[in-house]
Each structure stands twice: as C-alpha cells, then as structure tokens.
C-alpha cells in the first residue's frame, strides 16, 4: 500500500477549477436522479405531445395557424421553470436538510462558487432540454421563427428569476415543505400561470394580473418571438428582471445554509 505523506500544503484551488468541478458534479447528479430527470426532461416531452392534441382548447381564435408552433415555446417555458425553479429548489432543500451545504461550508469552496456551480448545472440541463424539445418539435413539424438571441435572453432572465425564487424557497423552508410547494407551484403555474393555457382564455381582469407572473412573462415572451416573430418583448423581459431583482437580495438575506 502506498503511503501518502500528510505534510501540510494548504491553499485553495483557482476559482475556475472549483467551478468546473462543482458544476460537473451537480450536473452529473441531476442526470442520475430519476425524479429530476422525470421532472425536467420526461414530463415536458410528454406534455409537448399532449398539449399538441386539440383537446382542451382551440387556438384558432388566437391567430395560431399551426398548434405545434404555439406548444413548443410554451413547453420551453415549462422546461426552464422545471429545471431552474422546481428542480433546483427541491435539490437544494434536501442538500440543506442532509447537511451537504454545511459540509461544503467547511471547505475552501466559496458560497459564490457553489451558487455559480448550481447555475451552470441548471443551464447545462436546459441545453439538454432545449435540444430534446426542439427535436421532438421538429418531429411534429415545428417551424421556429424569430430572433434566437432574444430567445436566449428570455431563457437566461427566466432562469435568473425562477432560480433565485427556487433558492429563496429552499433556503427558508423545511425540505419537505419545499418539495410540496415547489411541485404545487409548478402545477399551478403550468395551468394558471399562462404556460399551457394561454391567458387570453382567462377573463380579461384576471389575465391583466396574471401576465406579470414570471411564468406568464417567460411563456408569452417565447411565444411572441418563436410563434409570431414579434420584436423584443420588453415588458416580459422587464417583468422577469424585476422578479430576479426582488428574489435575489431576499435569498441572499434569508437563505439559511444549515
């Protein structure tokens, strides 16, 4: 047996190396977790097929000629919400409960790099999601429109808004409550937050309020660009920015690590 020498040689690694290792670990663990894969990859694909069926409502009155062109951006919004809000909140909540965050706090890893690692892992999951959803969409004859840069901007701001909301939930509530709340909110936003069912199907007064939900802003922005080739959706981008701007300092202030 080789004997390692224990003579001290302390020092922290460069932050990029820590970030690469942290993001890689978080990403691999997400792909290994059956519930996470179901939530972020399988369910969105199933819902893509389901909502493409002309079952619940007609889209003809919204000026949508091809249903799939409406459904794909909606499902993209759902996927971002699944990965950056529900998945991140549940994962982080249980890491807090089981002392992972505390243990990492006893290493040279700065908290900023830990959060950055989680962010990168979520973005990597989103790349996989977008690829799978685009492939499935293409199989269903989806034709994307609009400016991909605006789509990217919407996804990034949506991730920032939902991600900080997810961390706020995970860092302040017990893991079991986070689990229940993150799933319930996901379902409510899916159906009543302007994702699967367009807000135009709601009474006007209700829709006027609901449009400022982060889910509605993200889905509306993505559909505007990808379905209708609309210009830059300033109101939606601003809405997401405000959510992120409110949730971020709140999470920084109230997040409990142990």
């Amino acid at each position, binding site marked *: 047996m*080789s004997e390692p020498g224990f003579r001290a040689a302390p020092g922290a690694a460069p932050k990029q190396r820590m970030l690469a*290792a942290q993001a890689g670990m978080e990403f691999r663990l997400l792909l290994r977790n059956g519930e996470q894969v179901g939530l972020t990859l399988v369910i969105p694909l199933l819902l893509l097929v389901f909502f493409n069926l002309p079952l619940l409502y007609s889209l003809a009155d919204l000026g949508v000629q091809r249903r799939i062109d409406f459904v794909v951006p909606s499902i993209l919004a759902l996927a971002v919400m699944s990965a950056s809000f529900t998945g991140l909140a549940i994962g982080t909540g249980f890491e807090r409960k089981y002392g992972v965050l505390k*243990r990492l706090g006893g290493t*040279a890893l700065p908290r900023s790099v830990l959060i950055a690692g989680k962010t990168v892992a979520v973005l990597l999951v989103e790349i996989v999601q977008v690829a799978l959803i685009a492939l499935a969409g293409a199989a269903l004859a989806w034709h994307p429109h609009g400016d991909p840069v605006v789509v990217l901007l919407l996804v990034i701001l949506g991730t920032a808004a939902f991600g900080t909301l997810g961390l706020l939930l995970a860092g302040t509530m017990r893991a079991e409550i986070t689990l229940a709340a993150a799933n319930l909110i996901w379902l409510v936003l899916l159906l009543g937050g302007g994702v699967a069912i367009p807000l135009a199907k709601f009474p006007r007064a209700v829709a006027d309020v609901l449009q400022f939900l982060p889910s509605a802003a993200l889905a509306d922005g993505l559909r505007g660009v990808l379905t209708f080739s609309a210009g830059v959706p300033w109101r939606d981008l601003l809405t997401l920015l405000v959510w992120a701007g409110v949730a971020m300092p709140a999470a920084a202030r109230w997040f409990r690590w142990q």
Partner: protein
Amino acid sequence: MPPVAAVEIVDLVKAYGEHRAVDGLSLRLERGCVLALLGPNGAGKTTTIEICEGFRRLDSGTVRVLGLDPVRDAARLKPRVGVMLQDGVGGYTAARAVELLRLFAAYAAQPLDPDQLLEAVGLAAASNTPVKRLSGGQQQRLSLALALVARPELVFLDEPTAGMDPQSRRATWQLIRRLKQDGVSIVLTTHFLDEAEELADSVVVVDAGRVVAQGTPAELTRTGAEGQIRFRARSGLRLDLLRAALPDGADVVEQDAGHYLVLGEVDPQLLATVTAWCAGQGVLAEDLAVERRSLEDVFLELTGRELRT
C-alpha cells in the same frame, strides 16, 4: 513573540436559549500536537469545535484558529483547516466515494491523490460505491479522507471513530499518528477514553460546558490516588465494615452489583487488608486485580457515574 497556537480559546461562552452549552471554556493547542476533547454527550464538545470551524458564532470569549478569527477570516482559514463533522459524510450522498473525494480535491491547490488516500483509509474497494450505500464505518473513513485531502495544517475530527469496528478504529488511530508525525495539528473529540489515552498529547475533560480537568494522559491518571484494586464478589458486601478496616485515605465502592473498587495508595499492606477482610467474611474475591488508575476512572470521577438522561 511566541509562535501562534494552532487553536486558542479563552473564556468561550455559547448559550442556546437558557442553556449554556459552553460555559467559560479555555484551552490551547500547540502546533503539531494532538488535543482530545473528552466528555459525556452534551458536554459542549461539538459546539466548541463547530465554533472553531466557523459554523456557529460565539456569545462571548475569544477563539483564534491559526491566529485567525473563524468567522471574520473564514475565507483565509478554510483552505488551511480540515473538517470531519459528526454523523455521516455530509456530502452528496448519490455521488460515488471517489467522485466526492475528487470534488473536494478540486477545491485545493495541492491536494493529496484521491485514489491513494482512499487506499490509505481502506476504501479502495468501495471507491465506486455511492456514498449512501457505504456502511456507517465506511462513511466515517470517507469523512476522514475528505477532511485530509486538501492537505490542511490543522484538522478538527468530531468523534472520528464513532461507529467503527475495532479493526477500523485501530487503522484510524494509526492514520492519526501519521498525521501527527507529518506535523499536522489535530483536535479530536471523543468519548472513548482509550482513544484519548492512545492519541492525545493533551486531554481536556469537559462536562456541562466547562473544563473539569486537563493535562497529558499521564498527568491526569497520576493525580489523586496512586492506583486501585478491583475484585468481584457477591453483591451487597458490608462496605462500611471493610472501610473501617482500610488504612486512612483508602476507600471502597461497589461500582456495579458485585464489582468492587478499592481506591488508595496500593501497597502490599492494602492488598493484604482487603484479602484478609474478605477471608474473615467468608467471601471469595474473584478476578482480583491491582491496577493503575485509568483515564476512564478519572473521567467517571470527574463527570459522575450515574447515567444521564
């Protein structure tokens, strides 16, 4: 200027509500030495160590770790200190053992080789096992490896051998001795007295958040009585009669039913007195043994023999 101590604690106080978990504790660990914090459950050992690690904030007193403040100077201190928490690994439980160790190695500028380190703690065969499937003792050994991989100059080991089988305990002791040989400073908590006696240069006995004794294991076992005689006989002997027969300064107690302990200056006369008295009572003293005082006796005298709830 005297060299900076590895750990220096002065008058540390930490309360949870009304309860003072740590109540005016002071200790000092020199560089390259091993200090054992010994005490019953709830004595304040973990609270003390977690304040040193920066996980908890103190109410009053001062704590300096490698001359730094564990909270204010955390960013500078963490790369230099290795931490082994109580109760499990505390890392990603879905990760494989070697993955988790590699992750922790990636936080360090000049880490130990993860595969070699796994071998050193006897986990080479389990390196691809997910952390959650490791046994309790294996998790403890992985936890120790995680504390060491960044090549720290000081390690805090909170009950390092809890849940280990005897072989693993011996192997872990061997590893801790090698750490010390290589100049690493070590604070460990334990309620195994043999562990403190085997490993520590200095032992600090704590009870109810206070230091009740400290010194080298030899000093602690030397103070007070010189030795003791143990024997076994039927329970309920008239100890008042035996006590009257014993020379001044000697005493006898029935530790558990039928287990007797004579404390005092052990000399041929004392031994003769005990055996003669037993003979006079028609009692056969079995398993009679003359012993030097063990740390366990010191510990039980200091912290009480009754079970705590």
